[in-house]
């Protein structure tokens, strides 16, 4: 097992910079997600890892070996990686077993060892009865599992996944998320997973690299990204919450109830520190507005099953999102208490 080191990788397409000085250190066996909106350069980064695109600058190293730099380019077939494509990329002229076994054939494996490995890989994704089918006869989820089996059959150093769930419906996604986690737990191989869906990334990855316009916005565990986002952009991209301005704290500081409530009471012009308040940290007092509470008006109510989402407007004019156990009528005056907040870096 070898760690993957991405150092200052840059990729230009003509005048356009798709990836801009990206650096990541990925531990062996780690499940990593590259997350960002479409066009942020995450797929380009994945294709550079695979070796389909040369780098403009920087270096990619796997263990002690340089895979790619400005001078050097190891072709994809010599990198010992595997990839699951968004379109599955199953070869239509081979049946399921041949598709899975093809990487083994290229490694000159044959006979009983070959059969055993293919059977093992198919069993792992629960597709053993489908070995003789052609890929066209399978459903989307089954095709995806064939692609997964093809990845794990050779014991690759790194497995790359390019939006593997984008073509599946919602129910299937949940099931496939489970099989990805299962796959990672069993193989302990290094996984790099590209997605634009934050809930997918949060559910699966050990660490997430959030990308925006080709640059790395934040590189952290899902918990850290949720609780301690670096910028307002990351905060709005991951989870729900409201951005308020306060006088207290500094970027990277957690504010407790007292500091937060006093910091927001100041005049608007003095409040310069942006702070993120998650809806679960807002307490709504529908009936008894106390002296400490801020006053707000209910602007909208959305039923979410287990609770209601309240869209509130503070007296200062700022919008605030809160959860509540009961529906409140629109236009009603309520009191709110902010129990904690996270100070963000101001937008450049």
């Amino acid at each position, binding site marked *: 097992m070898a760690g993957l080191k991405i150092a200052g990788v840059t990729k230009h397409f003509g005048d356009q910079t798709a990836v801009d000085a990206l650096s990541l250190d990925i531990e062996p066996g780690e499940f990593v997600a590259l997350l960002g909106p479409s066009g942020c350069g995450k797929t380009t980064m994945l294709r550079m890892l695979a070796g389909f695109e040369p780098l403009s600058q920087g270096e990619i190293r796997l263990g002690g070996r340089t895979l790619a730099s400005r001078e050097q380019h190891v072709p994809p077939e010599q*990198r010992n990686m595997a990839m699951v*494509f968004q*379109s599955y990329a199953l*070869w239509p002229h081979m049946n399921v077993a041949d598709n899975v076994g*093809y*990487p083994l054939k290229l490694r000159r494996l044959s006979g009983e060892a070959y059969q055993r490995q293919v059977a093992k890989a198919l069993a792992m994704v629960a597709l053993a009865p489908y070995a003789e089918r052609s890929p066209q006869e399978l459903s989307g989820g089954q095709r995806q599992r064939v692609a997964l089996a093809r990845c794990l059959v050779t014991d690759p150093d790194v497995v790359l996944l390019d939006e593997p769930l984008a073509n599946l419906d919602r129910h299937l996604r949940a099931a496939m998320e489970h099989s990805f986690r299962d796959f990672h737990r069993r193989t302990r191989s290094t996984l790099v997973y590209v997605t634009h869906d934050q809930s997918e990334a949060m559910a699966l990855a050990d660490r997430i690299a959030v990308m925006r316009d080709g640059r790395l916005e934040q590189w952290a565990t899902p918990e850290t990204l949720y609780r301690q986002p670096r910028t307002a952009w990351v905060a709005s991209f991951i989870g729900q919450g409201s951005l308020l301005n306060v006088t207290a704290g500094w970027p990277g500081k957690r504010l407790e109830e007292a500091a937060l409530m006093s910091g927001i009471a100041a005049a608007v012009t003095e409040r310069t520190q942006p702070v993120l308040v998650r809806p679960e940290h807002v307490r709504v007092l529908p009936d008894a507005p106390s002296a400490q509470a801020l006053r707000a008006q209910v602007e909208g109510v959305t039923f979410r099953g287990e609770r209601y989402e309240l869209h509130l407007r503070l007296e200062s004019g700022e919008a605030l999102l809160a959860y509540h156990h009961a529906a409140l009528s629109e236009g009603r005056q309520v009191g709110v208490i902010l129990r904690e907040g996270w100070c963000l870096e101001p937008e450049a």
Partner: protein
Amino acid sequence: MTPALTGGSQHRWLLTLLMLVIVALSLVPSLRLLMEALGDLSQGSESPLWRVLQAESTWRALWRSLYTSGLGMLIALVLGCLFAFVITLTDIRGKAWLVFCFMLPMMIPPQVTALSWLQLFGPASPLLKSIGMAPPLGSPQPLYSAEGIALLLGIQSAPLVFLALRTSLLSLPRELVEAARISGARQAQVWGQIILPVTRSGLIAGGAMAFISSLGNFGIPAMLGIPAGYYVLPTLIYQRMASFGTGVLAEMASLSLLIGVLALAGVALQQAWMKRSRFGLVGHGGRAHDFSLGRWRGGVTALLVAILLVILVAPLAALVVSSLVPAMGVPLTWETVTLNAYHEVIGRQGATWRAVRNSLWLAGSAAVVLMLCSVPLAYRLQRLPRRWQGLALSAIELPYALPGVVLAVACILLFVRPIPVVNVALYGTLGLIFVAYLARFLVVCLKPVAAGLAQLDPSLEEAAQLAGAGPWRRLSGIVLPLVAPALFAGGLLVFLLAVNELTVSALLWSAGNETLGVLIFNLDEGGESVLASALSVLVVAMVAALMLCLSLLAPRLPRGVVPWQG
């Protein structure tokens, strides 16, 4: 597809009527031929079909047709595969020029191809004489042979293989190749184990197309085979008709039926394979793959250029040299060079000029008439149920899919007597050739228009309808401007094919009604190779110019309209 009109029933009826008439007219020649060939079966062993099937010459010509076309197909497969794989898959430079040059032989009329190769080899070759390499007098012309015919058929139909294979290569999703690379396959393994199997059916379809096209080719076996007494089916029909006239029409109809059935069987085979080649591929297709040739790039480029030099540049150079000498057998030097032949062709108002005028007139008016028919026809066809649409298209395609000789014989059968009721005699006039061209080239003009129409979003017309535009108004104000580039390209293609056409007119021309194709053929047969060469040089220049026009138009056209641009 839902009919977009409810109120405009008059408009709908008119279009339907037009469509029915055109489909019927497309079918009539083939039906007439079928009637003639099968009509007298009751006479038993005396019936024309039976006599033809018993004649030894029939089976000899059939075998020779199959042999030359089969060998030609193999040559076309080798050339077409090499160019398609290298140009589509690798990072070779100058792709656009390589494609253009490789496609040019398909658009050069076969009689000109044959003539230029004849000028390249043989003891009288002005080019060989000029560089002092001509074989001694009396040595045989190597091209007057079955293998010579096959070679030229192969070169002429190689672009068909190239196109079919290139299309399936371009539709191959990039991910299939990348998945193999990352599984550990080297470039050569990816090619052999992934690309070749997935695109195999495109390859077979291309081969079938090359075979059919060679089977129906008249110009090449006529120029190379007749002097050697080597007759294939189309030239056998031509020779019989030339010697015996309309007296042997019934037998010729039977022969035509034979070759027509062969060609249609080939078409059916090809379409079946094309259908199988659609795997239902998912992914990002439509993009050339980028195999790196590395240090081989120079060598591979040199190989392709060398092949183009041999199959295109050398024969055309020989043609130009031949057109500049005062007489065959005279080497080209600064003293002998002369433009007399061009003077003769352009300057004198003789038979040459008349043929040029006839061809320009025929091709031009055929293009205009077909352009006028194509838009309403395609518009109505698009609104037919899928099944009927397929049948109507097959009927329209029939006169083009059949070898030209077959269509010519059918047209003679139809018009040898004056048309009843109106009492107009077409036989022996330019009108006969004109009607044959209309039937033959309709599909050439219709296909780009239909492709353009299929690309139009139906909501464009619906929006105009809601704005209050009636059916005719929509056709002229919305549909026509949007398909105009495709329509224009279709007309140009018709002109390009018709102006050089030989196969149909070889049987249908009469004194005073020669076409350009017939003239080149006759000049060469009459020993006037220098004049024929000069005329051919002009024809090639015109073809290249028209192709360039189409290339310039290409960015505004639906994909696949311009055959040499994938």
